């Protein structure tokens, strides 16, 4: 009975001997020989030479021998495609065998042999097996379709297997359903746009029924598939949730996690006022906690997922802190993950317990774990103000242990504590300074240097300390060099008399002796600032720092939402989207959470609230970047606050200078439009993405190379946003423009576009010499004449001006499309702002299309370009609509009445010659149905959204 002997044959001439045995007449001997072959194959010997002999053994009624031969075939068929064809006959015959186990075995194995010649023969048997009377054969055939699709997708489509597979979703056997779902999901993944898995309420119902009956694995396939469904409303979402919740008590953790995924996703659609919403939240906690009593590997997967869940919905586990306490013999990977979650759950209510635990952990053996524990103590101090004092004293105790890595870690977190609570704990600086020599890690050194620079006035020998670092300047890592540079400049600005020599030394080291462009650029900025305007330098370098956020290492909200859709999978373990680690087309589609129900809901949601309610011009509190991003942090510290430094000395600027505006405005607007875009579109995901740690480092790192443009970026913070309304809006508030307030709007009169602006002087001095210039924009809009402001503008006086515009200026596509960036100059300075013009300014008078051409063009434009909108609550009949639109250069080409609905076919043309075709559906005489349906077709579909907005505004005013 022992098979291990097969592993031991190592003598020479083995292959030859095996060949003889394989061809033996005795069945037993044959079987022994095949076993030896398989054993050799397993340990990696090449036994492909025996292919014909092994295939000869295939025709047998001994199932065990057959399985062994099949196993061999799966391994070697690919390397011997011509020989593999010998096996086809037996396969085809086996697919007809009266024994269902053999039929299934044959079709299963055939699918694993990736040889084109064989797959050709596979189609017929597979078709039969998909309709086999035995469920075991059907469930095997279902998976086989996925195998075949992997080898030859076209063949599967041509042969119509996909439809047969879809039919299996209605099969009476739950396992067949589950395997069909698995196969379809996999095939659908490589066809992102097909609606292969045509999930509708009926199929969902079938899946939910099968869910109660199939194996644990089948339940996972079905739940994972359900998670991709978007219920049409909250009622449907709730009813699915109700039927999925029983799965939370399954013994299989994967079933539980997949159920959690479905619930987390569909919960998004439920209103928070619903009783059921609260019930569901309560039901989620216990199973998540139970996952922690599983085997360590599963605990790890569960913890990585809980980390996401806690970020998305902190309320679920907020009372469960204790279960995340680390056990002495947890594997290290479990310990580290638990610690992460403990920090996230720390609150005023449980901080005492958490701190006591963290203190224990800081004495453990594993270096990474201890470091993380120390860091966690600092995080607690920042998160829970009441505990700050205790945390700091704990950290000081830890520093006293003199354990090198503990000290370094403690100093790094204390730096953040200083920033969070200025002027509170600086008394500990003396203790920190004692440990200067023991710091050998860049991050700790940089943190210590920052502290010395920041509190230079309180440290008597700050200059000596920094000087000592300067000796080995070129051996330091970049982050230490940058920090040292900044710290010495700070020191100089605080104690200019004693440190002039030092600052010159560091500036020359940074600018002349360094190869690092970042360092050089920063050196030059400081140098020029200091030499031209020391007061401004002081304002910049010693500016008040923005608050640091309490939460750290948060996953960026869009990514978090995507990862929530991947709960239980590798993506949730890596905390990376699948596209980051999966090759090819699979899994590259980004999954999204369903939109929240109710518009006010999105602003109430705690994680979205800050960005949705914040003014676009407000800078979010900066977040402490995760480890290793100190560079971003530094920039933040030094240059973070919006400093009102005039970007360009105004006296030397000529208003007509286009290139200057081009460069300046581009970099100025770059970040800003991104922020605006997010806020305007109202998408919480984009809006919230602004200013989170994942975004910060890149958006801050990028401009470093650009030197001065960095300053512009920050100086430009707080652009007003133009909004789509006809009355004048304030484009440039007085506070941003040294007292000049500009408000305005756009109009189209007699075929000309005008920009009507009001200039108001809110400053104390007279303003003169006004001029205006536009940046390149999407439709080439430019002033047709100079801005006519003849009289000087006295304080508190307002001047109206109407600026004629043309559309022959330089073109550059903007985002949003109708964004216009404007520069206005007066005798004081140059000011920049941006506004949005309504697109109907661009509708030209000859936009009426011939009926025939209209029809032909409508057909000619591909259907993908058609966009549909709804205009809600519009109480107008067809004639009123036609008239109203006509006065805005939207022309009705034809009118039809279909089933009691008026259909208007309309055309309009933009200044740049783009035609937009529209179909407007109106239901006359029905007061309950006042929504208009608008379909737009255009060769440049990006304008459709704006045209729709124009429609809406025109029809509603």
């Amino acid at each position, binding site marked *: 009975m022992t098979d291990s002997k097969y592993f031991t044959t190592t003598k020479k001439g083995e292959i030859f001997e095996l060949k003889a045995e394989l061809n033996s007449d005795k069945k037993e001997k044959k079987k022994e020989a095949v076993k030896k072959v398989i054993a050799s194959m397993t340990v990696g010997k090449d036994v492909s030479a025996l292919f014909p002999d092994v295939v000869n053994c295939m025709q047998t009624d001994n199932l065990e021998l057959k*399985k062994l031969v099949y196993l061999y075939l799966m391994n070697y068929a690919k390397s011997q495609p011509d020989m593999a064809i010998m096996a086809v006959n037996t396969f085809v015959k086996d697919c007809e065998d009266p024994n269902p186990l053999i039929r*299934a075995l044959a079709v299963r194995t055939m699918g694993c042999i990736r040889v084109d010649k064989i797959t050709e023969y596979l189609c017929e048997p597979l078709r039969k097996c998909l309709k086999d009377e035995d469920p075991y054969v059907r469930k095997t055939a279902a998976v086989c379709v996925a195998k075949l699709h992997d080898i030859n997708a076209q063949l599967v489509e041509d042969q119509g297997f996909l439809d047969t597979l879809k039919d299996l979703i209605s099969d009476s056997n739950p396992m067949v359903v589950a*395997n069909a779902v698995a196969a379809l999901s996999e095939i659908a993944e490589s066809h992102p746009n097909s609606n292969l898995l045509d999930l509708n309420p009926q199929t969902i119902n079938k899946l939910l029924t099968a869910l109660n009956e199939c194996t644990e694995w089948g339940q996972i396939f079905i739940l994972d598939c359900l998670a991709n469904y978007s219920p049409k409303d909250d009622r449907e979402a709730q009813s699915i949730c109700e039927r999925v919740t029983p799965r939370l008590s399954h013994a299989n953790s*994967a079933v539980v996690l997949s159920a959690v995924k479905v619930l987390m996703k569909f919960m998004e659609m439920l209103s928070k006022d619903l009783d059921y919403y609260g019930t569901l939240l309560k039901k989620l906690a216990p199973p998540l906690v*139970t996952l922690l009593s599983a085997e360590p590997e599963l605990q790890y997967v569960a913890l990585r997922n809980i980390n996401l869940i806690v970020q998305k919905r902190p309320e679920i586990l907020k009372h469960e802190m204790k*279960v995340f306490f680390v056990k*002495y013999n947890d594997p290290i990977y479990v310990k580290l993950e638990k610690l992460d979650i403990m920090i996230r759950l720390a609150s005023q209510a449980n901080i005492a317990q958490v701190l006591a635990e963290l203190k224990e952990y800081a004495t*453990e053996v594993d270096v990474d774990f201890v470091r993380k524990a120390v860091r966690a103590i600092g995080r607690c101090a920042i998160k829970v103000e009441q505990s700050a004092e205790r945390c700091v004293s704990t950290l000081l105790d830890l520093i006293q242990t003199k354990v090198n890595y503990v000290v370094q870690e403690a100093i790094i977190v204390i730096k953040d504590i200083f920033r969070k609570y200025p002027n509170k704990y600086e008394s500990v600086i003396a203790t920190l300074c004692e440990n200067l020599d023991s710091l050998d890690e860049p991050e700790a050194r940089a943190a210590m240097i920052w502290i010395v620079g920041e509190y230079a006035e309180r440290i008597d020998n700050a200059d000596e300390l920094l000087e000592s670092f300067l000796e080995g300047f070129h051996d330091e890592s970049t982050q230490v060099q940058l920090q040292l540079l900044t710290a010495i400049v700070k020191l100089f600005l605080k104690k200019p008399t004693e440190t002039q020599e030092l600052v010159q030394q560091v500036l020359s080291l940074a600018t002349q002796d360094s190869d690092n462009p970042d360092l050089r650029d920063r050196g030059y900025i400081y140098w020029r600032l200091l030499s031209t305007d020391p007061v401004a330098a002081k304002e910049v370098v010693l500016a008040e720092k923005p608050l640091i956020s309490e939460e750290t290492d948060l996953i960026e909200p869009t990514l978090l939402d995507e990862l929530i859709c991947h709960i239980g999978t590798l993506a949730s373990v890596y905390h990376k989207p699948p596209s980051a680690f999966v090759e090819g087309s699979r899994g590259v589609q980004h999954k999204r959470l369903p939109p929240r129900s109710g518009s006010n809901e999105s602003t109430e949601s705690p994680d979205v609230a800050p960005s949705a309610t914040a003014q676009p011009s407000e800078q979010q509190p900066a977040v402490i970047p995760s480890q290793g991003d100190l560079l971003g942090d530094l920039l933040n510290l030094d240059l973070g606050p919006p400093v009102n430094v005039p970007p360009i000395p105004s006296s030397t600027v000529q208003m007509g200078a286009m290139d200057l505006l081009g460069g300046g405005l581009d970099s100025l607007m770059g970040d800003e439009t991104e922020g605006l875009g997010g806020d305007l579109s109202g998408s919480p995901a984009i809006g919230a993405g602004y200013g989170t740690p994942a975004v910060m480092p890149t958006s801050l790192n990028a401009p470093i190379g650009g030197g001065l443009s960095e300053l512009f970026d920050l100086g430009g913070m707080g652009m007003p946003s133009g909004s789509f309304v006809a009355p004048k809006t304030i484009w440039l508030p007085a506070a941003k423009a040294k007292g000049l307030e500009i408000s305005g709007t756009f109009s189209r009169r007699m075929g000309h576009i005008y920009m009507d602006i009001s200039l108001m002087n809110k400053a104390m001095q007279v303003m003169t010499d006004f001029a205006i210039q536009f940046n390149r924009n999407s439709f080439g809009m430019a002033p047709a004449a100079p801005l006519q402001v003849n009289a000087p503008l006295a304080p508190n006086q307002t001047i109206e001006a109407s600026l004629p515009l043309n559309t022959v200026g330089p073109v550059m596509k903007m985002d949003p499309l109708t964004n216009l960036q404007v520069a206005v100059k007066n005798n004081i300075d140059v000011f920049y702002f941006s506004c949005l013009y309504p697109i109907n300014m661009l509708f030209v008078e000859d936009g009426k299309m011939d009926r025939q051409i209209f029809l032909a063009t409508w057909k000619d434009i591909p259907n993908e370009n058609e966009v549909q909108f709804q205009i809600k609550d519009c109480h107008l009949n067809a004639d009123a609509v036609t008239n109203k639109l006509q006065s805005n250069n939207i022309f009705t080409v034809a009118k039809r009445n279909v089933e009691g609905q008026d259909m208007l076919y309309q055309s309009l043309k933009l200044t740049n010659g783009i035609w937009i075709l529209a179909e407007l559906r109106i239901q006359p005489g029905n007061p309950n149905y006042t929504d208009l349906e608008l379909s737009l077709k255009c060769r440049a579909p990006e304008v459709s959204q704006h045209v729709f907005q124009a429609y809406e505004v025109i029809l509603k005013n």
Partner: protein
Amino acid sequence: MIGGLFIYNHKGEVLISRVYRDDIGNRRNAVDAFRVNVIHARQQVRSPVTNIARTSFFHVKRSNIWLAAVTKQNVNAAMVFEFLYKMCDVMTSYFGKISEENIKNNFVLIYELLDEILDFGYPQNSETGALKTFITQQGIKSQTKEEQSQITSQVTGQIGWRREGIKYRRNELFLDVLESVNLLMSPQGQVLSAHVSGRVVMKSYLSGMPECKFGMNDKIVIEKQGKGTTDESAKSGKQSIAIDDCTFHQCVRLSKFESERSISFIPPDGEYELMRYRTTKDIILPFRVIPLVREVGRTKLEVKVVIKSNFKPSLLAQKIEVRIPTPLNTSGVQVICMKGKAKYKASENAIVWKIKRMAGMKESQISAEIELLPTNDKKKWARPPISMNFEVPFAPSGLKVRYLKVFEPKLNYSDHDVIKWVRYIGRSGIYETRC
């Protein structure tokens, strides 16, 4: 889905390798990558999931055997691990302990199993009860047509865990309530965390397809029932327990539990785990450990530990073991204990104190003097917690089995004819007191 499955011995030699998907590329590369990066990597394994060159490896270790699943896709990670554990269970139930020898001895069987329970990387039915009906290593030629279709309908059916036509002369079932009680206590005797994780393990030897219903003193059920008769609810309410969460074997109808909180099922034949549960409230802590550690100078420690048993005096705890950690630089230890035997085990850096039996409401004590070698190691001794092992004949959570009813409508036996055995065992899980 799973692209391949490899089994290695402790040296990193491949014992079993089965590739399901082409996308994992060259078999040898994948096999070697895991060996080099995980098995041969000197340091402790930092994660059970490793990504090497865009290929993900999941591994579990059983004694010194490594099981690794390989994939290139965004698979359901929880499922892969559940599958690996299941794979271990299946192998254990076929040939006992998972060891290099057993795997080599059964490699043909393992390949056959792998072919059956994983198809194109998708786990299929992996219930040993069902598998054993047709994967036997003895061939299946003797089957009749009916038998074959019975096998396939069972493997794919709703009740994949039980076959039809089981017959016993004596219908008998054994219920074990196995609990492990976990505790973390501060040196001052404050409970930092305590929970019981329990399992109800059932051995069923029942004929036919019996319908079972299991009842326990679940607070929610009792309160629901007790609503009519206030008198009884007051009485039973005291004994009921609050279950934080429970999970069930796949035979239990979860939707019924969700709606009525009743536990009904058709059991698998033989031994299986019916449910797992967790409680955190009103736990009976069978033992209390009171430590006292005193450092006398730099080269001596004095340790005194008192243990108190806290349950009915008529019950006996067994296999009691107290483990008191000692510093690494211990040179000698003297111990005195009132009861049982105590020994210093240098290799484990601990004093191990064993007591065979101890009745409830008793107290015992050990004191030890630990001599230390002077060291210049600055790092402080971490003082690991004192841990305890024991076994008690009751359920520390307070769980009681109220009934287990058996109905088999087709066969001629009733609930009364079934012989039922119930046993409670409470064991220590991680039962630690910091010192």
